């Protein structure tokens, strides 16, 4: 076999593999995660480094254009972009004309697979960088290891100072702390959220919210039921209870699929994402899934005792976070129509990541039961609808800092993901999206 034939054979094999995808979420992409994760032909990654296709879902605000271009440039060659419009605006900004444009109702899976196959086989050229090849400052390295100055931490290579020392929160050994800005397209964080984190090793030494999640982005939480109810969550018209509860189940399952992917349980994440795309009409259809998750020792071990929120903090977060901490606060408990359906709030006790995913799974099952019992029942006009994910508390940044400082970074990311604040909710928007 000649070298050319071998290369052709390898290319053909590579083109048939799962397409490695990095998802950059924008506005109007509630089910983008679930649709990509449910596909057996795609592999959604947490970093663009190993991805070959960048999927930009929804509209990207102007202020996020440069970070998005940097994410694009950080993919290895060969690379392609698929621009997946989520809010009817199918025109990507200037500079992205090379991207494949896919409408909100089009087959995103087929488009991504085609883009991947074309770019691997050479039918489509690998995309060039979008940002200029300019360093923020000269290297100016003079030391034997190019450290930019005299001494271990004496220089500022590329204009970036070396790490400084800081107090250690565990055993007092003073070593370096590193400042990093995380976001706005970091997987598992709400879209647009930028954290300024000081790391001491893998422990969060300090944390500040620099930019709140982008208002209007519904990646973590769709309104109830999806687009039918406004963000006020107290619509002036009657809304079918079955539609509300199925939307609630859908959102809980989407969230659960993302959390399972975060913990590396991709097979379970794919199963849950499939359920989220087509919510079962009978609660028994989630029985086997519930049993598998409850018996998954890895998930229990990784989530138990992590990110504990209780007492006043849990009440501030509200919704499933509060109920997972034993606070039975739920707007549906005061609803006449829900009273006729025999609704009782589900609560858990510990308020940790484990109880939060168990809470949402139980609420998804309960929502399907309520939808099945509701028939044609509707809410009363003006009745407050309990959101699947409430808005973040007013002191969002302070709450996150109090919760996450001192934890390991993996637990910190998992805890943020487990909170699932809905930045579209009325309480968040009325505050002008500030923290």
């Amino acid at each position, binding site marked *: 076999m000649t070298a050319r034939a071998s290369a052709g054979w390898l290319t053909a094999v590579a083109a048939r593999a799962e397409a490695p995808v990095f998802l950059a979420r924008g506005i109007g992409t509630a089910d983008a995660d679930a649709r990509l994760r449910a596909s057996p032909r795609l592999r959604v990654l947490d970093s663009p480094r190993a991805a070959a296709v960048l999927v930009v879902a929804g509209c990207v605000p102007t202020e996020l254009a440069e970070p998005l271009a940097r994410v694009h440039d*950080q993919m290895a*060659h060969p690379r392609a972009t698929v621009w997946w419009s989520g809010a009817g605006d199918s025109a990507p900004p200037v500079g992205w004309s090379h991207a494949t444009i896919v409408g909100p109702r089009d087959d995103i899976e087929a488009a991504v697979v085609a883009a991947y196959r074309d770019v691997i086989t050479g039918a489509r050229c690998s995309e060039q960088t979008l940002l200029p090849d300019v360093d923020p400052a000269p290297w100016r390295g003079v030391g034997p290891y190019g450290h930019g100055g005299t001494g271990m931490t004496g220089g500022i290579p590329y204009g970036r100072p070396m790490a400084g020392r800081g107090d250690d929160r565990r055993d007092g050994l003073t070593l370096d702390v590193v400042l990093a800005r995380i976001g706005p397209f970091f997987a598992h964080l709400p879209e647009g959220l930028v954290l300024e984190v000081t790391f001491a090793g893998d422990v969060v030494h300090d944390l500040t919210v620099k930019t709140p999640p982008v208002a209007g982005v519904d990646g973590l939480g769709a309104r109830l039921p999806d687009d039918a109810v406004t963000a006020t969550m107290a619509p002036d018209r009657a809304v079918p209870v079955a539609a509300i509860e199925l939307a609630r189940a859908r959102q809980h399952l989407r969230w659960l699929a993302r959390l399972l992917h975060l913990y590396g349980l991709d097979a379970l994440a794919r199963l849950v994402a499939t359920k989220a795309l087509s919510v079962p009409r009978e609660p028994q259809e989630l029985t086997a899934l519930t049993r598998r998750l409850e018996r998954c020792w890895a998930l229990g071990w990784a989530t138990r005792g992590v990110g504990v929120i209780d007492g006043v903090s849990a009440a501030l977060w509200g919704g499933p976070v509060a109920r997972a901490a034993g606070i039975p606060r739920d707007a549906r408990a005061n609803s006449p129509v829900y009273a006729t359906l025999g609704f009782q709030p589900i609560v858990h006790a510990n308020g940790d990541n484990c109880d939060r995913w168990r809470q949402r799974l139980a609420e998804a099952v309960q929502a399907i039961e309520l939808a099945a019992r509701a028939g044609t029942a509707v809410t009363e006009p003006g009745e407050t609808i309990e959101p699947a994910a409430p808005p973040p508390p007013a002191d969002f940044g302070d709450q996150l800092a109090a919760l996450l400082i001192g934890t390991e970074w993996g637990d910190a990311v998992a805890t943020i993901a487990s909170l699932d604040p809905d930045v579209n909710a009325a309480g968040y928007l009325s505050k002008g999206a500030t923290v």
Partner: protein
Amino acid sequence: MVALAAFSVILAILGSSIALVLAGRWVAARADLPATAPERVPFSGGLPPEVHAWNRFHARYYVMALLFLTFDMEMVYMFPWAVVFRSEGTVAIGEIFVFISILALGILYAWRERSLGWS
């Protein structure tokens, strides 16, 4: 002759390793895609780093490393024991249990002191 054969195997492994490294460098040199400035920085969600990533951190797993060394050495002592335990009989069995028990006490002590936790 047997020793020479073993040495030739080592030489073959060494040669293969060097060949693989050289092949990798040759392929890397032929790849005409030099990394640009945005491609060189680590991914943190789309923002450029403000601080250089070179830093010193506390290798907190050093206690685990010491424990591993302890039990690695234990195996060294068990090899001669394995040679003689059939001839020595029950006495050898009892002695090795005492030996392992003493080491196990060390593990229990480390566990109690929370030295086995990653943090």
